């Protein structure tokens, strides 16, 4: 049902214009840049816009139109939508504001009218008052922010559902800057039709989406039960990370009972997230930390983490962080200890963390990781490779990119300036998550463990 928003073969842009600085121009520019289907700019004042043949109305377009993007003032929207309905359009993304969000009777009336028209013609609607859809695979892009202001992330596997358009744009720009790939982003504004529940169902089946991130302010009244049901079904297919905005209690509500007094908005949401087996990110940092680990790493079969480090101090910090997040950093088994002893210089520490010390080189790291990858009693490997030591020349990082396909989660800690940044980017673009903070790594890895347990055993362990 929602396919038309992501993979239309033709798009009409109502309110298209060649005028600099206008939303209608940015929309045409962005579609031209990335979208491979037919683009029909609609504006009665032009016969041509940015090199494309323009039409006076949707009705004048010669071929079929799958999707219409509307960016004209609110009072014109009902008329445009009706015309789209007559044309047989199946989906509309209404960018225009001026509806219920204005708090005026006129805005409410217009929104009601739009709702009626969409129902009677069977047109699915995203919006109004939204930034719509950005799909890096199909090139649909109604985020009316010019590329020089908001970079687009590379094609990838994180999809985003956001109740806030501004937050979605900022997040995408940030992802692009850090090289994190994405599949789809949707912001639905006043959500008169398509909502987060239906989008979750859609993304669950979407092949290019491996992790779904949801920025949620609130589910509509009475829809909570359905949210829990659907989120649980989707979590059984792929990880869902939710960030709930508005965590503080609604004050001043006279409560009929003890239970009602404790059932603040967020408390119930938090429990509902648990019940639906979605993963909750509780801070901005966690959103991307969880998404990048969950979108790149295979399931973690148990909680045993082995740390390979060239810096003893970071190894200790990591151990503390991992253990306090419910993971284990077990003693090195005796047969592994012997194997390590025979291959490493005497001053290296063969416990866990395995400390290769400051004179380590790429080969020393690779030999040890190679051993760990072969063992059934190792559930995840964390490589602490501080690049300041002279022996690290870079082959380790290329090796890690290959090792990531060998069935075990591999994460890295790299701290430092330009050289560190270069390696970090190399690894992250290749699907090996890199952290500066041992604590953040531990939190994200524990989320992978929790999700793996849900997938493998049906429940948190």
């Amino acid at each position, binding site marked *: 049902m929602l396919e038309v928003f992501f993979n239309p073969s033709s798009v009409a842009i109502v309110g298209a214009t060649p005028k600099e600085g206008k939303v209608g121009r940015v929309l045409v520019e962005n579609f031209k840049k990335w979208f491979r289907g037919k683009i029909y700019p609609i504006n009665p004042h032009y016969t041509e816009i940015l090199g494309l043949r323009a039409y006076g109305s949707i009705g004048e377009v010669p071929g079929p139109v799958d999707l219409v993007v509307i960016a004209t003032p609110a009072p014109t929207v009902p008329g445009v939508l009706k015309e789209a309905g007559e044309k047989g359009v199946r989906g509309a993304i209404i960018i225009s504001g001026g509806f219920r969000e204005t708090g005026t009777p006129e805005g409410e009336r217009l929104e009601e009218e739009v709702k009626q028209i969409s129902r009677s013609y069977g047109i699915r609607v995203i919006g109004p008052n939204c930034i719509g859809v950005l799909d890096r695979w199909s090139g649909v892009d109604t985020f009316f922010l010019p590329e020089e202001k908001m970079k687009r992330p590379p094609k990838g596997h994180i999809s985003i559902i956001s109740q806030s358009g501004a937050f979605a744009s900022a997040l995408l720009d940030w992802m692009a800057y850090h090289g994190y790939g994405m599949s789809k982003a949707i912001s639905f504004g006043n959500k008169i039709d398509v909502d987060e529940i239906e989008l979750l169902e859609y993304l669950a089946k979407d092949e290019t989406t491996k992790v779904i991130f949801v920025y949620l302010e609130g589910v509509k009244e009475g829809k909570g039960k359905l949210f829990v049901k659907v989120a649980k079904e989707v979590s059984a297919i792929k990880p869902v990370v939710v960030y709930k905005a508005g965590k503080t209690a609604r004050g001043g509500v006279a409560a009929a009972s*003890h239970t009602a007094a404790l059932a603040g908005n967020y408390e119930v949401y938090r429990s509902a997230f648990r019940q639906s087996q979605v993963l909750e990110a509780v801070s901005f940092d966690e959103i991307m930390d969880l998404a990048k680990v969950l979108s790149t790493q295979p399931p973690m079969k148990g909680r045993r983490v082995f740390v390979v480090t060239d810096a003893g101090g970071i190894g200790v910090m990591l151990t503390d962080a991992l253990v306090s997040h419910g993971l284990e950093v077990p003693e090195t088994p005796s047969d592994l200890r012997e194997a390590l002893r025979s291959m490493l210089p005497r001053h290296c520490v063969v416990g866990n963390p395995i400390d290769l010390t400051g004179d380590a080189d790429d080969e020393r790291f690779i030999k040890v990781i190679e051993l760990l990858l072969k063992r059934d009693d190792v559930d995840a490997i964390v490589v602490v490779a501080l690049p300041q030591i002279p022996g690290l020349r870079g082959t380790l990082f290329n090796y890690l990119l290959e090792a990531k396909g060998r069935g075990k989660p591999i994460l890295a800690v790299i701290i430092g300036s330009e050289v560190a940044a270069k390696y970090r980017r190399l690894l992250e673009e290749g699907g090996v998550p890199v952290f500066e903070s041992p604590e953040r790594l531990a939190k994200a890895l524990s989320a992978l463990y929790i999700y793996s347990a849900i997938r493998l055993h049906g429940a*948190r362990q």
Partner: protein
Amino acid sequence: MKADEIIKKALEEGRTKLLEHEALEIVKLYGASVADFGFARTPEEAGDVAEKIGYPVVVKVVSPDISHKTDVGGVVLRLKSRDEVVGAAKKIIENVSVRQPGARITGFLVQKMAPPGLEVIVGGTRDPVFGPVVMFGLGGIFVEILRDVTFRVTPVTLQDALEMMIEIRSAKLLEGYRGQPPVDKNALAKIIVAVSDMMEAHSEIVSVDLNPIMAYSSGALVVDSRVIVGRVR
């Protein structure tokens, strides 16, 4: 009486809070184990009920007008004989007539004193977004000060209920500490499910507080039940 009859009667009489014995009866009907109780109209009847239940018992005033029973001298604990029970009920009538004159006295709740155990609270309420939800937490400071509770959207299964008990921060107390044996989690889970079933079955139930529930190494007893009802929207 059946659960819907209890609710209907309360609403017809213009009450939004079920009387003590009604509130206990309704959770019992849904399968929660409740400390033995009976309802008596007069002090003499209270004595009869106590004889049937066995001692020690507590006697509480039942009145649609009194919300804080203890404050008006409407509760007498640890009664060990028929005479004590009859005397206590008479004393309650006297106390109420002095401290809240005009309050109607429907009768008395006579309830077996539950032996001390780990106090927990189970509740139910209606959330505008999620609909009926149930709550679980440890009683006393854990709920009052630390707000250490967790919720589930109904319908709640036994499995869900058991997960709730792992989720609270003070979960370890349920496992027993300082030589105490672990509490009977299955018995508590049954009570949680009972509240879920009640909330699902009766849209007139606005909220439920079972507080306290005494949890033991074997079994658990609901000691106090507060059920608020209202007309369906």
